[in-house]
């Protein structure tokens, strides 16, 4: 079937197999940040935005993205660098394989809730598994980012 969608701001019109999963579609288009970590919708590594909402691209037919907007970390490099530098400053990226999905969902969190509590951070990101970090460094990074963001706003105001 033919689909028309916007991937990271770029219009794509393409003939695809009906059963193609969104993860395979975006990887084919060079969005290698999107990873497969499980086949059971548990790990969050394949997180992309569909019309701005974080979803699991491993479980979504590309066909369903027809007429919609798909965003991967490739399309959010500025935010990825901004938030990611706080993760990197903790060394909490470790192997890095879960990072893109985690970063995507962190961006989604901050868009929905710019000043989350620790509990809110943990709950919102609970669908992003990480086996290396024990999560503590990621939490420190998120808190440092929030503090920095606030400070920046105060200075700006």
């Amino acid at each position, binding site marked *: 079937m033919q689909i028309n969608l916007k991937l990271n701001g770029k219009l794509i019109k393409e003939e695809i197999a009906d059963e193609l999963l969104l993860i395979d579609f975006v990887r084919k288009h060079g969005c*290698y*940040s*999107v*990873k497969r*970590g*499980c*086949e*059971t*919708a*548990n*790990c969050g*590594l394949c997180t992309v935005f569909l019309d701005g909402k974080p979803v699991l691209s491993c479980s979504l037919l590309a066909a369903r993205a027809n007429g919609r907007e798909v965003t*991967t*970390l*490739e399309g959010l*490099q500025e935010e*990825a*660098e901004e*938030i*990611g*530098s706080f*993760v*990197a*400053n*903790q*060394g*909490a*990226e*470790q*192997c*890095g*394989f*879960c*990072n*893109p999905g985690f*970063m995507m969902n962190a961006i989604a969190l901050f868009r929905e809730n710019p000043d989350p509590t620790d509990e809110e951070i*943990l*709950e919102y*990101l*609970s*669908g*992003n*598994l*990480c*086996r*290396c*970090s*024990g*999560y*503590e*460094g*990621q*939490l420190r990074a998120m808190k440092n980012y929030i503090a920095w963001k606030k400070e920046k706003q105060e200075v700006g105001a």
Partner: protein
Amino acid sequence: MKVVNQPVMKKDAMSLVTGKPVFLDDVVPDNALVVKVKRSPYAHALIEEIKIDTALKVPGIEAIYTYKDVPDIRFTMAGQTYPEPSPYDRLILDQRVRFVGDAVAIVAGENEKAVEKALRLIKVKYQELEPVLDFHTAKDNPILVHPEDNWESKCPVGADNKRNLCASEVSGHGDIEAVLKDCDLVVEHTYHTKADQQAMMETFRTYTNMDAYGRLNIISSTQIVFHVRRIVATALGIPKSKVRVSKPRIGGGFGAKQTLVAEIYPAFVTWKTGKAAKMIFTREECQIASTPRHEMEVTVKVGADKDGRIRGIDMYTLSNTGAFGEHGPTTVGLSGHKAISLYGNLEAHHFAYDVVYTNHMSAGAYRGYGATQGIFAVESAVNELADRLGMDPVKLREKNMVRQGEVMPSYYNEVNASCALDRCMARAKEMMHWDEKFPARDMGNGKIRSVGVAMAMQGSGISGVDVGSATIKLNDEGFYVLRIGAADMGTGCDTILAQMAAECLSCGVEDVDVFGADTDGSPYDSGSYASSTTYVTGMAVVKACEKLKHNIIARAAQILDCPEEELEFDGKTVSGEKGRVPLADIATSSMCGNNIPMEVSESNSSPTSPPPFMVGMVEIELDKETGVVELLDYVAVVDCGTPVNPNLARVQTEGGLGQGIGMALYEDIQYNAKGKLWNNSFMQYKIPSRLDVGRLRVEFESSYEESGPFGAKSIGEIVINTPSPAIAHAVHNASGVWVRELPITPEKIWKGMQEKNED
């Protein structure tokens, strides 16, 4: 120290957090054949007939291989130094299948769809055999997992395939029976740990092609490029010169990738077809056909006097290596050596073990490597002893823990050269407010808060075996390239080793580029395992840099026409009375009319394996009615010698605690009666989410290890060892129940409380 002991950002950190394409499946060409394996539905069977003709006709199928097509050469997939202690018990494909998930056929085709279809169309007639599923009855069972005559054990590890024995040994010092008999109190219990999965986020994956020189080029997500080269060549029966192995960024390893898991299948396909091939394990394959922790049952006797002096430890470990023997003979040793040795001045110890074959998935190397299992047993037994003695378990340990300077008879008679275990305990106690919190407080709302404690140790590399090497080269404008064969799998060793090089060469980490690992381009390294890289390879880096520094000065001496002794190198300039030469000029001059090498290589091996030490303390809240445990606080104080990079050491610790907590509370391995594993996905094998680990607080109490680079020991493995015993202890302090089989589920606690109430 300017660079070492600093929280330097990992060299690849920004690439990783911004999702750059640096992992295997991001970087290899996409024209490779898709390789998959057909897997056995039976735990034990002989293939009577296997029909592939229909499957071969599926459009896009390139090749299908069965046991008839592979060399009759037995080998081991364990990434260990040759001759491997692990038995040579595998064929690439065998007529006998030994666990549910064992490889039956290899299929290669143009796309996944075709390969999946072909897999379904391969018709196999099996002769079902009775499996050995209970590891208690495996030894001397009439059913043999490896009856074959060409099974071979290359090292004297007490293996005997005609007894289902992968290894067996007895060791000790003193007269344990007499000592235990003379003790006021002997505590004896048996502890059971499961075959937990490393569950790194990136599954096993390998790409292979033939290079321009007709060599088999293997790119793999592996911790052990050199072992992969040797093992693949052995299995294929080809010269090692025909194989090259390299690794890209690795999405986590934890020991899983210290064994060949995916490599051999695409390698075989490429060698046969000449075409590029790629195999990516599914998560299900990772769960059912990989290389998890050895299931162990450890029986411990700890003898002590009433005053709390621990006098003797007797231990027997039964280890389940599953269908194949990878790391079977070696992991088991650590269950004793790295648990008993936590206690100094024992009058006697005795340690015996059997490692048995069964028709379960084979085990392998997983962070902690046997020590984790043994420490759960010994530390739990010591906590039970404290309980029986009515003594604070911290005081009991303060009285008995191994101290710096002591000889450790259960640790190859090594001297404990650097040890801050006592300071770790003191600090952990402070951080936890142990004295106020031990053992428990009833919160009055059906909840009870309690604390638990455990100590741990590990090694730093394999003494007298592991070899680490480093090559350092001075380049134009004065930047360096450090080539290593160690594998950064997210741990940050590229950065840590660059920090050491920068410290030696008085430059910044950014001035040192790191290359690795590639069997053609890297100097030899056993690989990144056994907590070896910082300690063993790190020292090679130091040696290489010292030598290069010497050569830099020598070249400057030529330029300045003065004796070397008059010159000093400050990282930027070599200077002396006769003048100064900037490093960049030395680099440039080295490329013109020069005979002094600006690239040097050094190797390092250590006769000792200095243990890092740590103390873990946990506070939990137990729901008295449901048995649900909530983790409130985990305190860990680690002595890894000098932490080369405090940030990375901290995150290593937190990550190890997270995995250890998973092992203690959540991760279960459950087989059905026919030997099929239920926990075959992340839906059914529950690694902790960020809501499941509580808060982790890590500090360091450093000793200084003279034999290590800048005083460093290891950190990678030890950090997984304390959660199981510490949490089991806290659970007991809250409920009165000792849970001696992992994971500690609410149901087990509840049942234990029920039984206690009935008593």
